[in-house]
């Protein structure tokens, strides 16, 4: 029998204090699309880094077509025929597409020849791309094309894709899958990493499931249900957040024709955004990253100022107020970036609790901090939101992503907001913590608050939101009730084609 393309045997990688991979073994055949499934922190990324030569495993061997394979650097892996599309793109914003592609190759041809090749390959695989465009100006989907084309130009035998669809619209996912199937048709193998189960079921013929660095299962995803795969991944049965029907109350947050210029060179300015959220309502705002999400959160939190009338909280104009004044009125926000924006990485949880809770929780008296009160507040958050940490004195940086996210969201919820705005509340958070956060948001709405959830995860929005609106190029579509909305309609809304056209189709 022909040996498999890549065979991994007993691979173990230990970091100080953490076993990232423990005795992992699996095979990838020629022309096979193999899924690597697991929650965040299950060790998927470490494993593919070993295959790509970015880290050297402590134990275990790999074989490439029966020959020992131990890459010491990515260039060796590329020479063997392994190419990788990273989850966080390894691109350079201030350089053009051709230069970015050249940087990912070991012996790139002169830029002009390369540009012609890029145009060529990108058309062959249905991924149109202009080689002279600046990467900073591209959408997330286009950026991913740069990564994929960079790989394809090296004619790889094995293509590794790390969470490729997390930033794509449903239509872009379709295009990507067409490309991947075309590649499989050409006899190339693909190692596909994801935690989106429906995708894996439609694309892959084999799956290896990782949990806490160990292989806990193998399956043919086409024979399994999404639920059974999920339970294999999590190791317990999943709890779906419940949402009792609520009667919308009075108007709490009203945004009228909000236009904000983005402070960042590669950001997206908001253009005439209008929305209204009532008490008890959850408004979900979808959209691919970089379409104005950060700017919208900044404008609502008070980091970016606007005209007073463009934002109203319970009728009160707040557009020109700073974050603390808005907090006083009950408008609280939890931004996307956990470390550095929502929390100060090197400060303790107590100090971080103080940072947004100082005024609403009366933690500061005539300029002096009430440390014991602040500690009590932090401990209450930790207890109520099941934050796994040795105590409130621990630095925010030391917490895992999911635990810190629970803390950051919990900190705002504990301050009894009348309006809460969250951006990517469960980004990079494991499934059970994500469920807990979503449940907390629903409970908050149930208790009479208006909640705005900005997220790229459409499944999440479908689960928690009453109404859905799409943010595209800094413009917000008209909100529509989630009930009865199909994925196709959402895709069109995300693409900016909402309105008459979709109404006619529906």
């Amino acid at each position: 029998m022909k040996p498999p393309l890549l065979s991994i045997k007993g691979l173990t990688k230990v970091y100080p204090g953490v076993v990232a991979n423990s005795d992992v073994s699996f095979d990838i055949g020629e022309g096979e699309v193999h899924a690597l499934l697991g929650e965040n922190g299950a060790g998927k990324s470490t494993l593919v880094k070993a295959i790509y030569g970015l880290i050297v495993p402590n134990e275990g061997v790999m074989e490439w077509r029966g020959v020992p394979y131990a890459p010491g650097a990515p260039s060796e892996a590329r020479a063997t025929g392994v190419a990788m599309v990273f989850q966080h793109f390894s691109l350079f914003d201030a350089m053009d597409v051709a230069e970015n592609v050249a940087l990912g190759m070991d012996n790139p041809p002169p830029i002009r020849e390369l540009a012609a090749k890029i145009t060529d390959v990108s058309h062959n695989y249905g991924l149109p791309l202009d080689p002279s465009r600046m990467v900073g100006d591209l959408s997330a989907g286009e950026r991913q094309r740069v990564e994929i084309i960079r790989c394809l130009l090296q004619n790889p035998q094995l293509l590794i894709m790390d969470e490729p669809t997390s930033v794509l619209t449903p239509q872009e996912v379709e295009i990507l899958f067409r490309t991947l199937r075309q590649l499989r048709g050409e006899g190339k193998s693909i190692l596909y990493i994801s935690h989106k189960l429906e995708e894996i079921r439609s694309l892959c013929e084999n799956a290896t499931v990782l949990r806490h660095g160990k292989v806990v299962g193998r399956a043919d995803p086409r024979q399994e249900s999404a639920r059974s795969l999920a339970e294999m991944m999590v190791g317990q049965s999943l709890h779906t957040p419940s949402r009792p029907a609520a009667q919308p109350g009075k108007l709490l947050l009203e945004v009228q024709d909000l236009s904000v210029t983005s402070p960042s060179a590669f950001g997206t300015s908001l253009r005439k955004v209008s929305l209204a959220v009532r008490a008890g309502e959850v408004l979900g705002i979808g959209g691919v990253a970089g379409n104005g999400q950060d700017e919208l959160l900044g404008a609502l939190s008070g980091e970016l100022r606007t005209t007073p009338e463009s934002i109203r909280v319970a009728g009160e104009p707040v557009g020109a107020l700073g974050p603390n004044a808005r907090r006083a009125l009950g408008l609280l926000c939890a931004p996307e970036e956990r470390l550095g924006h929502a929390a100060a990485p090197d400060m303790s949880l107590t100090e971080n609790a103080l940072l947004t809770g100082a005024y609403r929780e009366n933690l500061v008296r005539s300029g002096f901090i009430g440390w014991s009160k602040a500690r009590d507040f932090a401990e209450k958050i930790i207890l109520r939101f099941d934050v796994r940490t040795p105590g409130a004195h621990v630095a925010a940086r030391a917490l895992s992503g999911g635990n810190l996210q629970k803390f950051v969201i919990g900190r705002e919820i504990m301050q009894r907001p009348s309006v809460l705005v969250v951006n990517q509340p469960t980004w990079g958070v494991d499934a059970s913590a994500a469920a807990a956060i979503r449940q907390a948001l629903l409970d908050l709405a149930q208790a009479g608050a208006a909640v705005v959830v900005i997220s790229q995860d459409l499944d999440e929005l479908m689960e928690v939101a009453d109404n859905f609106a799409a943010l595209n190029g800094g413009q917000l579509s008209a909100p529509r009730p989630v009930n009865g909305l199909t994925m196709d309609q959402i895709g069109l809304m995300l693409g900016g084609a909402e309105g008459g056209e979709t109404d006619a189709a529906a």
Partner: protein
Amino acid sequence: MDLSSLNIVVLLASLMVAATPILMAAIGELVVEKAGVLNLGVEGMMITGAVSGFAIAVSTGNPLIGMVAAVIAGAALALIFAILTQGLMANQVASGLSLTLFGLGLSALVGQGFVGVVPPRTPKLDFGPLSDIPVLGQIFFRHDMLVYVSLLMVLAVWYFLTRTRAGRILRAVGENHHSAHALGYRVKRVRVLAILFGGGCAGLGGAYLSLVRVPQWTEGMTAGAGWIALAIVVFASWRPGRALLGAYLFGGIMVLQLNLQAAGFSIPVEYLSMSPYLVTILVLVIMSSNRARITLAAPGSLGQSFHAAG
């Protein structure tokens, strides 16, 4: 006041000489910053180069050996910065500032025996008939070798950064060190090499100051030239051609104000002395008033320490 004593040809010729040390330091720092490192120690490396170049040139009697020594001394000081910031992950701003202070002190100590000494003359290049062209010959073709070396350096750095693969890798490291690392480039190695190059350039610029432009040794003789070089890099939006422009602007105003002083221009000398700095900073502010453009041009990872994650 006697403005007739200002000779525009002489002015332009000495402009090139006055701008050369700053241009050298700036072009070196430009490469360093393109690699994503902010080295605020330019002033310290310059003056270390000035004193070492001077000392070696005087003791060997050969200004060229002095220049080589200055390059080595500048690079040696830069190596300390490289070890601190790339090896020990120290803060770049603090390390650069202390490098400047260290360089100023060290040079004062080394230079104690050399105050008032006259260095060997650096020969002018002989361009034959070219030097005799009226006006142009006097402006462009009656300088020493290093003026032309500095211009070649601008050209070489431009070519390196925009046309070569190594230059592209260097820019990539400065633009996004995580991406560069993920693609398998040695971020730290690239940065250390860039820092050493920057140190060498600053050292050479310093030696030009003490051996050709002045020429003698006085304590603290760089008088902020290193800081101006740093400002010029930003003002030039990290482009070699514009750095040349910036350095010549500063040099030009420097020469002009010296001549105005000599001509007995009737405003206080202090105002004239501060004018080159003032004008350069003013131009810098105006040029960088468009924030979006500056953030576009600035290397994305400038000034950040790189930890390889996982």
